[in-house]
């Protein structure tokens, strides 16, 4: 197995303190960056081929190079630590175990785009990681890695930790900017893209925590070294967060392109109780489920897309033969209906109606016409929303309708969920709240 890069220091608890971080090569990447011009730093990161780890996979160096430098306005860097995609928990552990590595990435990225005030947007529920970061930022100021004239380079940077307050949508970068500006977290029209018109209308780069954690290593060891790891188009390592029905849930860092089987069966110890794997998400609940037959798919952006899903955040939620996929889908649609920001109709209404249909299916009140109805909803939601939240809501529905249609049909036929011991619904029973246009809210 190739060496671990961004989780290399995880086994040692003292890593959280700046002294230990420095002893293990910490802030060397920053020293190296400050000896280069910002443009050279961007070139190095471009050469690494590093792609954003937040889900979209956009090349990081290219993103940085889009920031115009002649606007006469400040440039901002925002670290997206609003980690909320169901099944995803690598950002949290990256910060809990090696907070200076992440902060060093923030400082280097800020230098590269000539930013002097960087924001870290952390989800409010991350109380402990936030306290860790408070302390980490304080240490960095004390040691001259933040503030004025950083390490005698003449470069100034302040970092502000900003806490969210419970809204999944704020992980979407333009909703995050709205939230950071003190508004409801509703996405903005793109274009213009944040690189040009972002925070406070100024050029802004938004990067995920895992993306930034890679940056110090690229500066120390070179873009060429990084590009040599994993597949050509998806270089580097990636942390996969494995959860659900596995023996050893946890974060596992492997080279991109590692077969999913290695992560689920070897690292995470395989399925609980020796049961058969039923389905898994490659990148969080917003990426279509894959099946056991896809386990040999290499975990990289291209291969997972070719298999019909998305690498997303690398969050692998695993279900086994005992789990009902209709119920799993109902649960996820409940999440999307809750978290829809309400701005656009396909998402606000689509998630709500889909949830109603899935609820009656799970409760044994499903009808033959419900499956075409759900497919119709998928079709009218996918790519019709203002932002990708609605596409995420379609993923579990469309993939379970494709792979587990027999389970849906069994619910309708038996008038019950076959995975529970609930009795069938009487033939005369009907949905107590039939679908009407009068939506109780």
């Amino acid at each position, binding site marked *: 197995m190739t060496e671990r890069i961004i989780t290399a220091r995880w086994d040692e608890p003292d890593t959280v303190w700046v002294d230990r971080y420095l002893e293990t090569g910490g802030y060397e990447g920053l020293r190296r960056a400050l000896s280069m011009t910002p443009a050279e730093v961007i070139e190095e990161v471009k050469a690494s081929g590093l792609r954003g780890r937040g889900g979209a996979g956009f090349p990081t160096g290219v993103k940085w190079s889009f920031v115009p430098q002649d606007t006469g306005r400040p440039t901002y860097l925002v670290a997206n630590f609003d980690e909320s995609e*169901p099944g*995803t928990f690598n950002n949290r552990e990256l910060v809990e175990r090696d907070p200076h590595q992440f902060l060093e990435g923030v400082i280097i990225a800020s230098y590269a785009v000539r930013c002097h005030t960087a924001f870290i947007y952390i989800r409010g529920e991350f109380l402990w990681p936030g306290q860790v970061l408070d302390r980490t930022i304080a240490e960095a100021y004390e040691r001259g890695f933040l503030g004025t004239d950083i390490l005698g380079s003449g470069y100034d940077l302040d970092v502000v930790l900003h806490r969210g*307050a419970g809204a999944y949508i704020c992980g979407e970068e333009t909703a995050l900017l709205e939230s950071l500006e003190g508004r409801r977290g509703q996405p903005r029209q793109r274009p213009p893209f944040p690189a040009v018109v972002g925070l406070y209308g100024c050029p802004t780069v938004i990067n995920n925590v895992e993306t930034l954690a890679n940056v110090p290593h690229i500066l120390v060891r070179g873009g060429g070294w990084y590009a040599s790891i994993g597949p050509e188009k998806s270089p580097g390592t990636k942390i996969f967060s494995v959860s659900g029905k596995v023996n050893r849930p946890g974060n596992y860092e492997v080279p991109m392109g590692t077969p999913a089987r290695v992560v689920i069966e070897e690292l995470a110890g395989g399925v609980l109780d020796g049961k058969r794997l039923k389905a898994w998400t490659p990148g969080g609940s917003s990426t279509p489920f894959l099946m056991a037959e896809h386990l040999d798919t290499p975990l990289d952006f291209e291969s997972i897309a070719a298999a019909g899903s998305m690498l997303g955040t690398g969050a692998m*939620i695993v279900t086994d033969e005992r789990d009902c996929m209709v119920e799993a889908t109902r649960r996820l649609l409940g*999440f999307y209906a809750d978290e829809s920001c309400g701005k656009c109709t396909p998402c606000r209404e689509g998630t709500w109606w889909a949830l109603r249909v899935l609820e009656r299916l799970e409760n044994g009140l499903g009808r033959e016409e419900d499956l075409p109805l759900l497919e119709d909803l998928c079709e009218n939601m996918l790519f019709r929303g203002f932002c990708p939240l609605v596409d995420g809501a379609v993923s579990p529905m469309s993939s379970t309708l494709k792979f587990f249609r027999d389970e849906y049909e069994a619910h309708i036929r038996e008038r019950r969920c076959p995975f529970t011991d609930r009795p069938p619904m009487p033939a005369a029973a009907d949905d107590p709240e039939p679908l009407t246009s009068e939506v109780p809210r």
Partner: protein
Amino acid sequence: MPVLTPELVEVAERIVARYPKGRERSAILPLLYLAQSAEGHVSREGLREVAELLGVTTAEVEAVATFYTMIRLRPTGRHVVSVCTNLACALRGGEDVHARAREALGPGCEEVTEDGMFTLREEECLGACDAAPLVQVNSASYDRVTPERVVEMIDAIRRGDPPRPSHGTFPGDFRQVSRILAGAEAARPAEPAEPAEPTGAGE
């Protein structure tokens, strides 16, 4: 009596100063947390005072406050117990944990229990699926909680002896935590994260 005491107004001014000049509005969420720390939830008066401090209307502050679930606009228990029942936690028994917590806390606990001690929330993914089922008390995380354990936790909090969370120390009640979330507290020393127990990080 104003919600924001002179001490809190001073804290508020310090928070506002972290944002660029002319961008004071960015401090709405922190100041809502601050008002919440004073009252245990945010009242109309709290909204009004935050608006006044930032030079925006109360309606604008309310529009923001109603969007975010961690800003509570109704009376709330001294401790907020959140149980995740999203998919990863549900697969490991999160629903049973939630049901047992609900039973233990009794009627009305989704708003506030009769003794004013608790509010129960059924939560969406809290970003700790390796530790499923996850429970938070005032945003402090408790890993791998069983139905029996959640009842013990609730009893212990009732007795005034809250159990130690999986990371760090018990951060205090909902008001005290709201103050931390406002960014009002000086940085606390970070204790090392727990040793690399079950999570793997590769081999």
